[in-house]
């Protein structure tokens, strides 16, 4: 069932307009190291960072208005501009956190009084918050703040106000790269890039210490730290930060289903947990590959989700081997998240495959088309598939739906909750589909096709590079993309290897224009 047709030819065959990412030009020169851009911490990074900056404090819930995600990830450099509300929220967060610090300043500094203690606070807390040693100019500025409030309000107030200033400073909220005299990234910049890519949080002391000793410069040194970081529990957070956005897992938060069909908020939460466990255990901890992600028949079921798989309900989350289902796309979380209240959506499911696994953007529906979710016509029994074929049958729709629908139809064996079915509205289910000239008898054929596809590996690489760089520039950097794609192939498709490959790349880290020995 594996077709030789490329994605590009599949698109041109159908006459649909769209685009695919193909950064894999192996002939282009790498050029100089890309110019570093400042990056505001994403909200996840911000929350993780203050958690790690104040590990002994029970921080309150910090309100931060969501950032937009035009490229699918909420760390988009271009979109992450400050707004009046965000500045207000940073101030409120700084006040709330510093209030806790002031109640027990020993949580951030060992000494307990005097201006000299203020300097210690500035150098220790400031250094950790800025992710590098505080400069003398910065220390002088912060010391003036500390001393003023030490005189007017006492030690605790001086600690509190100084902490507020640090938490609202550009050095904390933004990743500002100082660079070096040779324009390469400084060792502290490297530590920061590593920690936010792999952990979605600030560097730990070991990483900062390594930077101070210039131990993040060679491939061998970097490998030691990257391996250590990937073995740390925070690496799962970094992986999930990418994965939840790549796989559009927040879609589940927004779907509505009929309560009378068995839907509840508990079910919603259980489906989210089901997906998290699969990704964390099968894909991440066990070093899973792209093929495992798509084809593994291992899954986790809980008391609220077992029925979706026709299995007896366990008393707690349990790993099972599913007899008839494979991979993330045949699990209930994905299937339910891409379904409407009463019917599954072959369009959403097909678009997901195109957008997130094949990196095909079809653009928007033509102007003026009715995109109402179709339902059955009265009187004549129709399957969901027949209804969608009918409402997308016009020529103007078929330009794209001739590609979308045959992918999505392969999931028609699953209802809008992700439950297996052979009959739909009294009629037998037809789950055949295809892509280009490749025909699929059902979802297993599709998943095997995707697992063997070079385009899928390229696409996932591009997605991760977009996330890692907060910009399409990352995915479009041919020099990094070609190396990372090759590493992914060499590793058999390991997704943790993908993380490592990006993290180790000297161009990504700003250390050198290209890998040693590679095409310049």
């Amino acid at each position: 069932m594996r077709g030789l047709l490329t994605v590009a030819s599949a698109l041109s065959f159908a006459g649909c307009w769209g685009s695919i990412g193909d950064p894999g030009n192996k002939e282009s020169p790498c050029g100089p190291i890309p110019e570093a851009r400042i990056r505001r911490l994403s909200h996840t990074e911000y929350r993780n960072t203050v958690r790690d900056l104040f590990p002994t404090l029970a921080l309150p819930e910090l309100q931060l208005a969501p950032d937009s995600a035009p490229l699918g990830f909420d760390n988009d450099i271009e979109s992450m501009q400050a707004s009046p509300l965000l500045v207000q929220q940073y101030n409120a967060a700084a006040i709330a956190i510093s209030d806790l610090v002031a109640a027990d300043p020993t949580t951030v500094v060992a000494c307990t009084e005097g201006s000299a203690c203020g300097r210690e606070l500035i150098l220790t807390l400031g250094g950790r918050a800025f992710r590098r040693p505080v400069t003398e100019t910065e220390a002088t500025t912060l010391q003036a703040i500390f001393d003023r409030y030490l005189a007017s309000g006492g030690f605790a107030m001086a600690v509190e106000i100084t902490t507020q200033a640090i938490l609202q400073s550009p050095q904390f909220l933004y990743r500002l790269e100082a660079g070096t005299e040779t324009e390469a990234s400084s060792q502290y910049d490297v530590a920061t890039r590593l920690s936010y890519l792999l952990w979605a949080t600030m560097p730990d002391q070991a990483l900062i210490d390594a930077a101070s000793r210039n131990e993040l410069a060679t491939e061998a040194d970097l490998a030691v730290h990257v391996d250590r970081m990937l073995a740390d529990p925070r690496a799962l957070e970094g992986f999930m930060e990418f994965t939840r956005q790549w796989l559009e897992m927040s879609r589940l938060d927004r779907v509505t289903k009929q309560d009378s069909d068995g839907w509840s908020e508990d079910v919603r939460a259980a489906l989210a947990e089901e997906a998290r466990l699969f990704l964390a255990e099968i894909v991440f901890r066990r070093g899973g590959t792209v093929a495992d992600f798509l084809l593994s028949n291992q899954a986790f079921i809980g008391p609220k989700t077992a029925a979706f798989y026709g299995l007896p309900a366990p008393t707690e989350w349990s790993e099972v081997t599913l007899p008839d289902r494979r991979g993330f796309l045949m699990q209930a979380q994905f299937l339910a998240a891409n379904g409407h209240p009463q019917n599954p959506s072959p369009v959403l499911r097909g678009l997901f495959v195109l957008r997130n696994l094949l990196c095909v953007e079809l653009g928007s529906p033509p102007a003026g088309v009715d995109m109402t979710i179709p339902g059955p016509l009265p009187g004549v029994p129709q399957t969901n598939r027949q209804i969608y074929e009918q409402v997308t049958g016009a020529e103007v729709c078929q330009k794209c739906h001739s590609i979308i629908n045959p992918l999505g139809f392969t999931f028609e064996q699953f209802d809008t909750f992700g439950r297996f079915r052979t009959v739909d509205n009294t009629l037998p289910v037809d789950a055949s589909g295809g892509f280009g000239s490749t025909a699929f008898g059902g979802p297993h054929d599709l998943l095997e096709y995707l697992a063997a596809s070079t385009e899928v590996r390229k696409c996932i690489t591009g997605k991760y590079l977009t996330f890692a760089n907060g910009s399409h520039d990352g995915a479009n950097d041919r020099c990094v993309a070609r190396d990372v794609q090759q590493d992914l192939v060499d590793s058999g498709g390991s997704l943790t290897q993908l993380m490592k490959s990006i993290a180790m790349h000297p161009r990504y880290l700003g250390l050198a224009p290209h890998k040693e020995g590679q095409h310049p």
Partner: protein
Amino acid sequence: MTLSRRRLLQAAGLGAGSALLPSLWRGAKAGPPTAPARMVICYTQHGVVHESWGMRRGMPDNARWDYALGPLLETEFSRCLRPLWRHRNKLAVVDGLSLATAIGDPYGDAHAKGWCSSLTGAIARETIYGVKSNAAKPSLDQLLGKVLRAQNPFLTDLVTQEFGVYENNFHAAIYGEGVPGGNVRRLPHLEQPKAAFDRMFPNGDGTVPPDPVRVAQPDVLAEVASMYDAVRGRLSTQDRQKLEQHRDLVRDMESRLRTQANTTCVAPPDLENWRYDQVPHAQRYTDHTRSFWDLTRAALTCDMSRVITMQFGPLRVDMIGGTGDLHHDYAHPSGPNHVNDPKHPLAKTVMTNYTAKYASFVAELADQLDDVPEANGTLLDNTMIVMMSELAHGDHAHDRWPLMIIGGGNLIRTGRYYNYEKETPTTTLSTNISAEAKIGLPHNHLLVTLAQAMGWNTDTVGAASIRPKKASAPDIDLRGPLPELLL
């Protein structure tokens, strides 16, 4: 636990006996000789059911006319508008406009096109990812905020406030200017009344001495702003502008806090923090809305804010007589293209209730504003409460866009029903629609009308013109107000 509205009213100085508060926001400064113009934009979703909203009363659809609403009995008001009947002499219903810029937008789904176009008056910008577009120009409220602050240096960054009752939805209609060379920014809104209260009244409730840490905040922010100035390193021009933008916003907040420290418009007891899981949804939605109305009244009374936007998330369908999914089970099947859909009759009923529910919320705000006397009438007479939506009706349409203005009788001609002709060449790019088709008068003229009523001397909001589909037709002029509405 629920939010204490009584305490909130007290906090805002609006409890019993305090309705005669003059504008106090500027502290010891004398009040203005005439009250300033204000606007509250109430943004709903899915348009309306035209047959239960419109009140053309047998007059021709395709013509420009207006009539007085005052003589109409309550029973003569449409079901959607009936909650506003008690304000009929201060109500302007505007029928027959089109979102011509949304109709002419080839990208994005119809909801997104409406959100991006209705307050910006411009065709949206396509994004690389997905079908949701971003606006290409700032929205009217943000433009007004900038103009008004330029006119009056006493106004702070709270000249506009953005509130929302937002239930896990993705819509957004408020856009601000980005850094030079960057894109327009989608602006977030506050969803927590408590957070809005804290921002408006940061200096405690007066029952305890001010917290010295709070008092110090303007100075802290001044220091923080200076840290943005001091940043060195590898920065591109755009990156530096991004930091300067952040710095300016910090300074803006500093300036506001200094102003707030000198205001007498505060008697705030503290409020319990609101938590989403503490009350049932319907009650939460209603209490949330009313809390924001209290804050809106306080902000307008004190001349703290001139423009407030309230973005309503979708009502729970069980609040209006349905079950299931509001968007797909009711909103879309209520459209006129679904007359043969078995869901259509019930959908129309539920969506009529939907609009009426919003109208009743807005009527409550109008009640509150009408209770505050000002030099030339009441606060309501100087405030235009504008109700709008991203769609005209459930079929993803943008023609015959429903628009209501409650209040603002000192700014526009209210107490009337206005109808506009459908004689503008269509702007659609759809191949399914003839180039000879006509749409309603573009809503840009309404945006200009609102801008001028607010004191902004402009003839353009958003695009100045747009191309019609018909190649041989001239550009459609989007400049100028609706003269019938202006005083």
